[in-house]
């Protein structure tokens, strides 16, 4: 039934924001400098807010889930459909900010398309989120330039992070079965349409930041099918700890 599929699609979108938000939240009180600490947690807050909107919509349409908390906290690893990029560990600040930049470029382009969706609640979430994501991209893009063109060491760290994370970008712009189906109904963007522009923007920023592009090799495209990296189980055990230990606890 279409309603159940829209619910599943809204969960997929919520998962991307929730998992990246959770990763950034780990930096609360641990950022390299105070301003960055505040920035990462502010971005986490925006992403969590967006995840809640997607999950609330999903719960409203769903026959399976009663509320947003059940979706966020009580699913198993394979039920999460976020792309693998967002679950990658924070590593050093180079890893954190490259992951953020690679996601932000996609995220802004994606939301600009989602705001044309004929599903009016998804459209409203997109219109609301775009304003926040612009700030995220400004922030991460500035840091790519600053560190890429900074010192030899900072350049190396950004380069190392780009080399590691590059294979995970393909998944952002490749539709899963569900996304393709949603595109057919005019609900979701066609991700393949974003691919050229995505790589054009990212490559031009890396050229400016004096970062070499890695060769296109094997690419990880499993997260949207529920097949995650070895890091994901640890992330979930943190995220779900409270609800698993004290079921139904509320704030």
């Amino acid at each position, binding site marked *: 039934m279409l309603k159940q599929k829209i619910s599943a699609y809204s969960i997929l979108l919520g998962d991307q924001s929730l998992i990246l938000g959770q990763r950034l939240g780990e930096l609360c009180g641990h950022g390299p400098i105070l*301003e960055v600490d505040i920035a990462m947690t502010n971005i986490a807050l925006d992403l969590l807010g967006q995840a809640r909107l997607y999950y609330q919509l999903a719960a409203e349409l769903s026959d399976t889930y009663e509320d947003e908390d059940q979706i966020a906290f009580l699913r198993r690893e394979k039920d999460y459909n976020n792309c693998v990029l967002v679950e990658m560990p924070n590593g050093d600040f180079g890893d954190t900010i490259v992951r953020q930049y690679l996601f932000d470029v996609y995220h802004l382009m994606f939301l600009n398309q989602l705001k044309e969706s004929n599903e009016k609640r998804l459209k409203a979430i997109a219109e*609301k989120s775009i*304003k926040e994501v612009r700030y995220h991209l400004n922030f991460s893009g500035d840091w790519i330039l600053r560190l890429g063109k900074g010192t030899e060491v900072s350049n190396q760290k950004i380069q190392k992070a780009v080399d590691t994370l590059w294979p995970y970008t393909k998944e952002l712009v490749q539709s899963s079965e569900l996304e393709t189906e949603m595109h057919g109904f005019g609900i979701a963007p066609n991700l393949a349409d974003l691919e050229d522009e995505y790589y054009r923007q990212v490559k031009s920023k890396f050229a400016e930041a004096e970062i070499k592009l890695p060769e296109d090799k094997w690419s990880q495209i499993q997260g949207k099918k529920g097949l995650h990296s070895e890091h994901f189980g640890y992330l979930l055990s943190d995220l779900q700890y409270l609800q698993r230990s004290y079921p139904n606890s509320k704030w």
Partner: protein
Amino acid sequence: MVDVQKQINIEEIWEILEAVPDPEIPVISIVELGVVRDVKIINEQLKVTITPTYTGCPAMDMISVMIKAALEDRKIENYTLETVLSPPWTTDWMSDETKNKLKSYGIAPPAENTQDKNSLLGKPLQIACPQCESKNTVMQSQFGSTPCKSLYKCNDCLEPFDYFKCH
């Protein structure tokens, strides 16, 4: 209860809501902030519509609690509180009077309209220091103490200050 409800008119409701301060910036009300979008009475039931500033802003829960308390203080119990996302909240809804209140409180108000070219292109803005009016200021941190603010410093009077972001 029904009698009390009937005596309440829409203007009084707006007055009640105008007295509810923003929990983070108490110098302006939630009406001035643009969070309250609509007040209606449908079939003798009051309906208040609000919209969030930023999606994750923790103050929104607090604002709902404060609205309920303000209404119930006036013995208004037959009401619904609805949240809408569209049209998305924008600082363009702030009046000049509201912006002046922010400024006298020590927060630099949004410097321009979201439709302005510089804002759309993400160009850095010249923000006037709310203490000494100098435009010789520098951004310290794009993100600040709440989602809606950035942190700036004045190079003339050396005071740090919050800037309410154009959104």
